[in-house]
């Protein structure tokens, strides 16, 4: 796929992008959550 060679390399290429996207989505969803509480 896409000349990537082994499936494991294609998979990790996708996983790298997906995990960075997960970070972005998590940040957007929780953008205003978790402000100072007692604190």
């Amino acid at each position, binding site marked *: 796929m896409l000349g*990537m*060679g082994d499936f494991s390399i294609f998979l990790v290429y996708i996983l*790298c992008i997906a995990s960075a996207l997960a*970070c972005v989505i998590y940040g957007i969803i929780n953008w205003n959550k978790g402000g100072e509480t*007692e604190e």
Partner: protein
Amino acid sequence: MALVWKIIIIIVYLGVVGFLGFLGWKRTKSAEDFMLGGRKIHPAVMALSYGATFISTSAIVGFGGFAGLFGMSLLWLTFLNIFLGVFIAFIFFGKRTRRIGRNLNAHTFPEFLGKRFKSKFIQKFAGIIIFVFMPFYTAAVMIGVSRILEAGLGLNYNLALIIFAVIVAAYVIFGGIKGVMYSDAFQGSLMLVGMVALLVIVYTQLGGIAPAHQALTDMGQNSAVLEQVKAPPGFTGWTSMPEWFSMNWMIVVTSIIAGVGIGVLAQPQLAVRFMTVKSDKELNRAIPIGGVFILLMTGVAFVVGALSNVLFFQKGGEIAAVASGGVDKIIPNFLNTFTSPWFVTIFLVILMAAGMSTISSQFHTMGTAVGRDIITPSKKSPKKSMIFSRIGVLIAIVVTVILAYLLPTVWDGAIAIATGLFFGLCGSAFLPMFIGALYSKKLTKIAAVSGFVSGFAASIIWMVLFHAKEASVFGLVGAITGGEAQTVVGNMIVQNLDPLFVALPISVIVTLVVQAITKKKQLPQELIDQSFAGVGKKK
């Protein structure tokens, strides 16, 4: 003329770093400011500082070069760096570290662990481990930067080392963590721009993503090309994983991917950054920047390192490691050969930024280990801890510079070895206790100390006696056997099994066994209540 431009660009860059260090100094009034930035650092600054501290010259040049030799399989480290090093670290470690650290008024990672388990021993011993072993990692990064200055400006290596140490010392000693984090954010931004440009250049030169990867895959199936490969046995091409349990697989999977990928969770200089923000909201906002930053740093370095083989082969019929004359020289040689002189100059500054942002945090961590953990300040004179920290930074710099002179003479490829040594040691010694501190209200002080000491001891013993990379340098087995053997066991798998894979399980098992024996010796309930006040509550 080109040299004049290089010097002008570097002076402008150092001027900005110097100004940010001065800004940090102006805003540092107390020990809490010096160590934690008053716990009010902006989320973008915190995220870029975390990323720029995490990613050093050794990640771009050292591990990028490794990708030139071992191939795209190193991308599994990028995945672990993003998933464990950012996503899991911020959400499951960062939030509790921030909250518990604040509840206990901890200023450093050793102080956090020491106060959480009511143990001066933990705080002092963790401080000593940082102060004794972190200079190896710092020296590794410093060697990388000095080599770049040597190659880029024609400076003498020893002179480059001294100049670099003095510049970093100035803004760490005076600017404290504010100076460090402001300049980290600036340097991290430079690194982002540079790495994106590098990726675009490579894919453009190779005709796009699919053709580039296809060309590399084809090279891995060409027997004439494979004859040039000097990678350890088990290499199957640049776009496939090595053969299971071959020497190549042991190095790639246990030392590089797992050793560094897991060790990152218990890095003192990274964990302390969670305590520099005022609420979980800042951590939530830092996660996107951190994730994208790591993807564009290590992901690009590894892809470019691997794809450089295609460009070198098309140009001269040689693979990257052969054309460059060594793994550590692949990325610098690639830049000199395939990018324009102005880009090489810009990238020289970017690599300086990558090294400087990591080294400054290491110096700061070592300094506070002295001023806050090894020499515990009295409550009557909190200002003294800042003075001792600054003296600690100074001592750390002297030790590091001496190591940076010595290491290249005893270790070939010292950068990657010394980096892996510290990451693995931290993972083995700190990780079980750190997880227990964050998630277990019942973990006893004795269990925490036992796991900590056994993880540290097992890691050191494995390095000195079994792991070929370090054992051959320490030379203890060689001295005893009269040079007949370098390690206690001659088995290839044992010799290449990273210390983390032995020491971390031992640390976990010892912690659990001692916990079962001492479960009645609970920590005082008021300490547990104080530590976990507000933990897990949402707003």
